[in-house]
């Protein structure tokens, strides 16, 4: 009998393209000549700069103060001199305020940093430490972790889900982290578990990473943490789809995971939280994958936040051929870049370089009603209908067809044989519907 792996309805199987880096151990990326550390490292309010040009900063020292509840401080990722505080290109495509540091090569650690045994701390103290360390979700959405760990009292969370699915093609950072740093991840999971008081804890990993499943199972022995092998399918790592696969619960439309008693944290976030608690190291580095046919050698790198993409690519032997598209993140949901002077931020899970011949640009054709977008949509929407209304600027109809439930995974646009930019039109519809809501 074929073993049935847990999954959700819909989704698809893009070529996974992970072979180039899946078996490469994580390397430490050397320091670049200049780091530009953005004050917007997460989706909350940007941090407020608290260092001046000319000042010497130490590794782990706060250079930006948190502003408000949904915000965390930003730290220097090495020691050196602050040479500028100015707008710099951000992977989002905007130009945003950044602190530019010229490393002195000493990598001197800030003296105030110290670890603690998480078991001696109360949930409140754990959240405060996590916030102080600037921990945000490293899966890509960069939501401040302490906020997620502070559900309102009326919403009890019984299930903590750790996301090790890594369903984006090309990306292997989480995979390598699970193989190489399973113990650290388990420590992080225990910290989250204590902060939340969750009864059930489970780790979901796509079954195309058997070595990661094995490593995590070994590390989780006698901890009560379940490790679940999931079907390999995009977007298995999408929050609502992952919760459904692991618990059979559907997050209601417009709701949050806590509405079904669940909370999802990425494996990288768990590892970062573990480092913050055990050694006091704030979030100043992350693991990411530099990959794609346009890079000489694909690698998994441990990278200081603020390292420019050009430096990352140079560490991988440089470009191969002529780059035509540079993407931060994965190919399904990542952001195309204007150039290589953009730095890595907390949400940067990968850098993907594609050449002209990898793009397969083709003109848009008419919808032939093949229904594939409906088959693959994990939210079970009718993408072609919503997109058609969006393009006619009939947003109330787009809303009636549940445009707001789109998770923007891009499966519809990927599968469309007529190359219709379906998810792009739905995103546009969602943006105008929310804008209209705000006005009223």
């Amino acid at each position, binding site marked *: 009998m074929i073993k049935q792996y847990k999954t959700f309805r819909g989704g698809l199987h*893009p*070529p996974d393209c992970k072979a180039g880096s899946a078996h490469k151990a994580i390397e430490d990326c050397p320091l670049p000549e200049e780091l530009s550390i953005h004050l917007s490292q997460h989706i909350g309010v940007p941090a407020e700069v608290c260092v001046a040009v000319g000042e010497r900063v130490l590794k782990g020292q706060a250079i930006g103060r948190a502003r408000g509840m949904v915000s965390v401080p930003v730290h220097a990722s090495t020691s050196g001199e602050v040479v500028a505080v100015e707008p710099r290109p951000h992977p989002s495509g905007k130009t945003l305020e950044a602190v530019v540091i010229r490393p002195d090569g000493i990598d001197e650690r800030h003296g105030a940093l110290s670890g603690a045994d998480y078991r001696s701390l109360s949930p409140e103290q754990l959240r405060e430490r996590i916030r102080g360390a600037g921990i945000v979700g490293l899966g890509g959405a960069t939501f401040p972790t302490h906020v997620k760990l502070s559900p309102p009292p009326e919403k009890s969370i019984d299930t903590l889900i750790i996301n090790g699915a890594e369903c984006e093609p090309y990306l292997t950072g989480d995979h390598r982290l699970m193989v190489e740093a399973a113990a650290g991840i388990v420590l992080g999971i225990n910290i989250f578990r204590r902060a939340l008081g969750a009864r059930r804890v489970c780790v979901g990993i796509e079954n195309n990473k058997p070595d990661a499943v094995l490593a995590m199972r070994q590390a989780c022995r006698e901890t009560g943490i379940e490790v679940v092998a999931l079907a390999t399918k995009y977007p298995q790592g999408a929050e*609502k789809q992952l919760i*459904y696969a692991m*618990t*059979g*619960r*559907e*997050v*209601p*439309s417009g709701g949050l995971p806590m509405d*079904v008693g669940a909370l999802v944290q990425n494996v990288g976030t768990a590892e970062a939280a573990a480092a913050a608690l055990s050694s006091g190291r704030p979030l100043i580095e992350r693991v990411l994958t530099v990959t794609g046919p346009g890079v000489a050698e694909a690698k998994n790198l441990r990278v200081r936040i603020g390292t420019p993409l050009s430096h990352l690519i140079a560490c991988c032997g440089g470009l191969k051929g*002529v*780059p*035509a*598209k*540079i*993407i931060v*993140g994965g*190919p*399904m*949901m990542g*952001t*195309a*870049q*204007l*150039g*290589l002077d953009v730095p890595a931020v907390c949400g940067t899970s990968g850098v*993907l370089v*594609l050449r002209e011949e990898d793009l*397969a640009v*083709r003109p848009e*054709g*008419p*919808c*032939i*009603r*093949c*229904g594939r977008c*409906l*088959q693959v949509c*994990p*939210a*079970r*929407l*009718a993408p072609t209908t919503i997109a058609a209304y969006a393009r006619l600027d009939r947003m109330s109809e787009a809303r009636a067809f*549940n445009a707001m*439930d789109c998770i923007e995974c*891009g*499966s519809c*646009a*990927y*599968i*469309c*044989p*007529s*190359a219709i*930019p379906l*998810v792009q039109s739905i*995103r546009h519809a969602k943006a105008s519907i929310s804008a209209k809501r705000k006005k009223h």
Partner: protein
Amino acid sequence: MDQKLYISSSPHLRAKQDTEQIMRAVIYALLPACAVAVYLFGLPALRVLALCTLTCVLTEVCCQKLMGRPFTWRDGSAALTGILLALNLPPSSPWWLVLIGAVIAIVIGKQVFGGLGHNPFNPALVARVVLLISFPVQMTTWSAPTPWGSGLDVVTTATPLGEMQSAVMLTGELPAALQQNTLNYVLGNMGGCLGEVSALALLLGAAFLFWKRIITWHIPLSFIGSVVLLSGIFWLIDPSRYPSPLFHLLTGGLILGVFFMATDMVTSPVTPWGMALFGVGCGLLTVLIRLFGGYPEGVSFAILLMNAATPLIDRYTRPRVFGHGAAKAQA
């Protein structure tokens, strides 16, 4: 860096199969049936196929020239319509009949609605039905199959379904011989349209379409299932008057219709349940028209009628959106 970079929103990858490949795959899937048609009916069949396909493509080009729209004949949809229409014509069709049919298919069946993807009815079937009503004599003059090299002159004959209907009308009973020709029906050794005669060749093409994931089981299974069920009920009631389900499956345009016309993406529902409902409608209408209608063959009419119901079916079979209502919570 001096190179120009592409900027677009995600996703940055695309599935390989495009519209042109889908159309081409359906054309490939029809080739076995075309080959059998040429083998059984000889050069006239080849002439009908070539003339029909060519006329369809040329008509599409002319329409788009006149309307000032970009040429799209390369997407293969016009050629596909041509082949499908040819397979729905008698081997003895005169050239003018083929010409009229091809022009009707492209102009009235497709371009007046805005071209590929916008037509509510299957263009080849629109043409076939118009021809059947306008030129009943030419459309029901059937050649007996004369396999290549058998040296026989073309002889006219009846189709098994036609024979059945006239026999039942005249005598109230089925001719005994009619139901014993199963092997001939499977291979195609009977009178009929170019493409409807060989179940084997059509099934081979259908298997290819399943393999390429161009069609799903929803429409074929529900279509065939409902034909078997309804014709089976009648057959059990009175086997001397109503033919067996097997006879229904193997004769007439059923197999061609089920796998190649009813599954036409443009004119069939997009939701899985909608497809199943569509198939059931096609099957029931086919049997009712065959047994009680004025025409021996009901597949074309059944599919066209269900094409008209497609928007309605799509509207009422939309899947429940993730996170809306009826969500079951289980630990």
